Structures are given as C-alpha cells and as structure tokens.
C-alpha cells in the first residue's frame, strides 16, 4: 500500500449538481457531484486558460469551466468546447482526476495507491467540517491525544477526522454517534470550536518562539 485516502469533504456539503473547492497535499481540487449523484475529483485547473474549475458549474453529468464553458466528464476528458460546437475535443484535452470513494457520509480522495476502501468510522458519522489554520501537531497538542495514520483522533470528549490540506492548514471533520440528539450535536460543535481556538493559540505561540 503506497497511498492514502484523504477525507476532503462531507457528503452533505456536496449536493447533486454542485462543485466545491477541496485540497489534497498534491494541490487544489474541484470536487463535484453530477445530477445523478456521482462524485468526481479533478485538478482545479482548466487546461485551456488555467481557470479554477471549482468556480465552474455542473450540468447533467458534466463539470463546465465558468470561463469558456468547456465541459468535462467524470474521467476528466473534455466533452464539449462551446466556441466550436461541431468539434469533438481531442483526447489530449483532459484534466487530472483522482479516484473518489464515499462512505459513512465522508467523501474520500485517493492519493497514490491506497487500500481498496477508505478507513471505517466505527459507527460514527460526520457532523460538520471546520478549517483550522494550524498543523495537525497543534491539534494533537490541544487535544492531548494523537491522531491515527488515517487521521482519526479521539480526545475523550470529542472525536475528529483530520486532513492536512497544506502547511499550516488542517480540515477538521467533527464526528458524533449516529444516534446523537440535538443537545449532543450542539455540544460537539462547541467543543470542536474551542479545540480549534486552543490549537490556533498553540500554533501562534510556537511561531512566536
């Protein structure tokens, strides 16, 4: 196994027919879900003029660039160039894509060649995501617990799934029991927010030294 699954977003944040920006260590992604519900991850750059594809739009089963409307399929191949409606786009026009898996309400992107399926969440489900401007080490220090290789961190009062998006930035998915009621959900969100603040203070102090 020479890769990993990166939890880039929550399923609930990516409704059908939408695209959003995500990030893996290799760079920015356009993460999108087709009208029929299929999720795909493409490099966030249209090969035509370099426009960010996460600013684009989804129609049917294709992702289109907002600049000139070039549209791409799940596999990254260009399907249509509106300036030349009669033209079949050459095979060479394509975006880099990454395998995607969706499980337990989390969208995972494969980096390298990871295991066949993403890690399980042991009966937990995601509540919400928070971006923290810290490295994972600062979150571990704030929580007093270590994350697993898959990014799972159990701090006793709160359980998190962590994804390093770039140096000094971590995406935190807050996990809760599937049957948690409203009070538990609100408490988990507050605990996670407090943890984020502590982690950012730790990171700032570290940077100041």
């Amino acid at each position, binding site marked *: 196994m020479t890769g990993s699954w990166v939890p880039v977003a929550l399923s609930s944040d990516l409704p059908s027919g939408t695209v959003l920006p995500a990030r893996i260590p290799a760079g920015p992604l356009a993460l999108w879900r087709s009208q029929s519900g299929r999720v795909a991850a493409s490099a966030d750059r249209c090969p035509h003029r370099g426009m960010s594809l996460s600013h684009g739009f989804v129609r049917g089963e294709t992702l289109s660039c907002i600049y000139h409307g070039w549209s791409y399929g799940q596999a990254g191949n260009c399907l249509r160039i*509106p*300036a030349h409606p009669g033209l079949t786009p050459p095979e060479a026009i394509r975006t880099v894509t990454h395998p995607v898996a969706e499980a337990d309400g989390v969208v995972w992107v494969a980096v390298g060649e990871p295991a066949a399926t993403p890690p399980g969440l042991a009966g937990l489900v995601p509540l919400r995501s928070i971006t923290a401007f810290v490295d994972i080490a600062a979150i571990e220090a704030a929580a007093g617990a270590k994350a697993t290789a898959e990014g799972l961190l159990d701090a006793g009062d709160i359980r998190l799934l962590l994804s390093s998006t770039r140096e000094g930035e971590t995406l935190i998915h807050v996990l809760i029991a599937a049957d948690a009621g409203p009070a538990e959900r609100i408490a988990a969100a507050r605990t996670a927010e407090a943890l984020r603040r502590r982690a950012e203070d730790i990171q700032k102090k570290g940077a100041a030294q």
Partner: protein
Amino acid sequence: MTVGPMFDEWYPVGIFGQLDAAGRKTMLMGEPIVVARDDNGDAKVTDGTGRSLPVCVRYGHVWTSLGDPKKKLFAIPEADQPGRRFVDVGVVRVRCSPLRAVENFLDIAHFPFVHTDILGAEPHTEVQAYKVEIREDVDEVWATQVEFYQPQAAKSASGGITTQYMYRVAGPTSTVLYKTCPPRPSEWDVITLFVQPLAEDLCDVWPWMALFDDDTPMTDLIHFQQTIFLQDRSILENQVPRLLPLDPGMEMPTRADLTSVAYRRWLKRHNFTYGAQLVAQ
C-alpha cells in the same frame, strides 16, 4: 528581476482630469512613482528618487515610462473625431498579470459564460473563423472580421444583434477594440483597455471609450463598462498561474484563440516578458 524591453514602453498611470498638485502615489513595475500636476497645470511624473520621467497626456490618461520610449505613444485617430463622447471609466485593481488582463480583453469566446445576457448568451456560443495578423509596418497585432451574437452589445443597444469587432494590440499592455456602433452603423465604437503594470502579478486597469452615443448619461456608460470589467476580474483573479504562460505546453488554445496565440507570439518576439511565465513550473 530585470524588466527587459518592456521597461522602455509607455504605460497609463492616471486620469489627467482627476490629477491635482498633491498628486497620486502609485507604482509602475515595482517602482514607486508620483503622478501630479505642476504649477503650469501640466502632468508630471517622478520616481522614488525624485527623477522626472517621460510624460505624455493622451486619451484621457497620463502616460509615462521608467525607461526611454523609442516611439511616440500609439495613435487612435478616432480620439480626434468630432461627435464622439470620451469616457474615462476609472480604475480597477486586479490581482493578475497585466498580460493576462490584455489577453482576456482580446477573447470573445467567454462572453456567454462571463458576461451572460449582456455580451453573449447560450446557445449562441460559436466563434466563427476570423483573421489575425501581426502588422509589420506598425508592429501591432490585429484581429479582424470578428463576429459575435450579443443580447445587449452596448448601453445604447436595445436588443440582440450580431456585433462586428476588430481587435488591436498597440503596446504590450495597451489594447483597443472597434465594435459595431448601434446608433451609427457606418462608424466603429472604440473601447480600450489601458493596463498599468504595478507588479508582474498585479495591475491597475483603466478602460477608456470613444463612442457615438449622445443619449446615455455618462454615469450609465461608466457603470456598464465597470460591470463588464468586474465580471472579467472574477476570472482574472482565479487563473493559475497568475503570470501569463508563454510555454506552449502549459495551456491549450483552439481556433477561437488565434488572437491570443498571436499576442503571445508577439510578446515573445519582443521579449515582452514582464508578467509572463516562460517555463512550465
């Protein structure tokens, strides 16, 4: 970095009619400059060391150069034609290469997607073949016989028309377009994009227009052009890389992009590379 041959070209640095004695502090290619009026009311531009720079006032704007311009500022004969209204649109700062701002201005294929229901609309997305040349006598890039269907081509247009265009690159960051003039079919409206390079990845854009339109209030003409350009800015600030790639492998043009292909070739030929990325990174 060294600026190269673009050092000796003319650049817009302010609207002449809006200058006062106190002056406007700005930047040109990384150098701080001050643009002001002197005691005679003439425009004066000085660099950070107090050195006076070359000055020329034309097309509503003050132009200067950090170097030694080999040529006079390019001509726009329509600027002296009676009956036209001249519109100083103002300034829009854009976090992009000055060359990307020019290239976007030369492009029509984005109209239906970026200027939706104004300069273009689906399903009218096709770009018909047009002519592009580098005119050796004047050393300018020209695109002619450009046509596009537009729902509202100008503030003065009341419905959809097929608009004719000509595009002209008159300097590395100065471009002029000529388009169908709805109230006067025998004439061309003139719309320019004068770009002030603040840095390689930051520019101030000064659109200027010379129109036959006696009816539309000045404010509306300015708002129309600003609306269009702010739509362009949302693209320009999200292109990767920020610099204009001159490496042919980095971006993929089609037939609709022949003006941009000629512009890039012309930039390379002159070593106009301030704001360009030469090698894929």
